[in-house]
């Protein structure tokens, strides 16, 4: 009958709305379900856990003797799709008096980097790695152009 259908429709509608409202009210009275993380605070209280593989920035690790593993082979420069890496080489004079190619500056332009990991994959001597530092904001764009090898550093012995 028409009237019965009409009333059924109305009550069905109200019931469907009621289930939704019950769900939101359940969340309203269960503040423990809140998943917000407070960004600058969570660094201090230890909630901010970054995955160890998270790719934030390319760095060149140096050991305690200020030595790195980069031979200046430019494999990373070739692998980079964006021209982020530029390697400036120089010639060192070894104690034997031979000329040896070494890096002068490992220029890394963070503003062009897409964190694709191809340079790290390409590096034959594992000289560069990705760190999970993600706070890159600076006031001047020039600060994003970084020189990865520390001043005075030299290549570790035994890496060709």
């Amino acid at each position, binding site marked *: 009958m028409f009237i019965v259908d009409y009333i059924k429709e109305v009550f069905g509608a109200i019931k469907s*709305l009621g289930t*939704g*409202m019950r769900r*939101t*009210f359940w*969340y309203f009275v269960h*503040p423990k*379900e*809140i998943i917000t993380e*407070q960004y600058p605070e969570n660094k201090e209280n230890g909630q901010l856990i970054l995955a160890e593989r998270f790719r934030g920035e390319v760095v060149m690790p140096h050991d305690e003797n200020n030595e790195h593993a980069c031979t200046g082979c430019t494999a990373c420069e070739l692998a980079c799709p964006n021209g982020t890496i530029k390697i400036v080489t120089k010639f060192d004079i070894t104690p034997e008096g031979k000329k040896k190619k070494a890096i002068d500056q490992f220029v890394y332009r963070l503003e062009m980097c897409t964190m694709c990991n191809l340079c790290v994959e390409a590096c034959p001597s594992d000289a560069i790695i990705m760190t999970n530092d993600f706070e890159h904001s600076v006031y001047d764009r020039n600060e994003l152009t970084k020189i990865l090898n520390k001043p005075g550093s030299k290549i570790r012995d035994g890496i060709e």
Partner: protein
Amino acid sequence: MKFSLEYITKSVDGWLNATFNPTIAFLIESVIVMVLVIALFAFLGLVLVIMERKVAAFMQIRLGPNRVGPKGMFQTVADTLKLIVKEGFTPNNVDKFLFNLAPFIVMITAMVAMAPLPFANGFQIWDVNIGILFITAITSVSVIGILMAGWSSNNKYSLLGAMRSGAQIVSYELSAGLSILVIVMLSGSLRISDIVAAQADGWWIFKGHIPVLISFVIFIIAATAETNRAPFDMAEAESELTAGFHTEYSGMKFALFFLAEYVNIFIVCAVGATLFLGGWMPLHFGTGTAFNTVMDYIPGIVWFFGKTFLLIFIIMWFRWTFPRLRIDQLLNLEWKYLLPICLVNLLLATIIAIAGWHF
């Protein structure tokens, strides 16, 4: 002694009339009332916005604003400061007069509609004998402000939003009015203080049988629609019309729209609380029990605001749960469902009122 604001208002009135001549006393009283209303507006704006944001956040498993002040309580103060400082931008080719007038019309109607609201026993600005008619009449003027804003903005989104809003408010006035009529019939008066007094022995929602329950539900729906709140926020319809009729407004003019929206919510909820939930009347069960005595010691103004904020919470709860209706469905809902139900309901209520079956 029970706390009542009536003594304060009476003694202030008496002192003023004794000290000054009646005209000056009246003027001073007007100034006091104006200051109080504006203070209430500011208070409502600040409280309702933070309440809405917190309710939304908790339903959406978020924390909500929590940076300014303790638990983010001063967030709205900061927002208001920002809106005051912002440039009140007027775009090219707008009808400047109407464009600047519209927010004030919306605001003034909201202010005027507050006149007959009884905040507590005897704490009422103007106890006019057609109080409830006055409120319904005044609140429907605000649609003119919205239409003005939409038309003068020289923006198609604004125009669409304003037209939607016009159609919507004209339709939902009907069911809001009819559901109010049920209470008016049962109380036998349009004067708000009489309606409240009629609920001294129990709120209408408890003693009015099913017709009052139905009209309460319909009133809440119509109130949501009349204040352009989701799921009936066709005038703004964020995902369709960006911001609807106030797309082009910024700065303080936008703040006025924003404030008026929240004040309107407060007014319709206060009307709902007065008509259905007994206004400032405390909750009573039976007669002369200890429970009733305890309830009597809670001041009327607390009851009034408690009930109003409960209704406001329900309306916010709607907003953060439901999807938006489409404009034709919105009108269908009114003309196909709410209006017939309202008319049948009115008939039932008439029978009950005539036969005196209500408690």
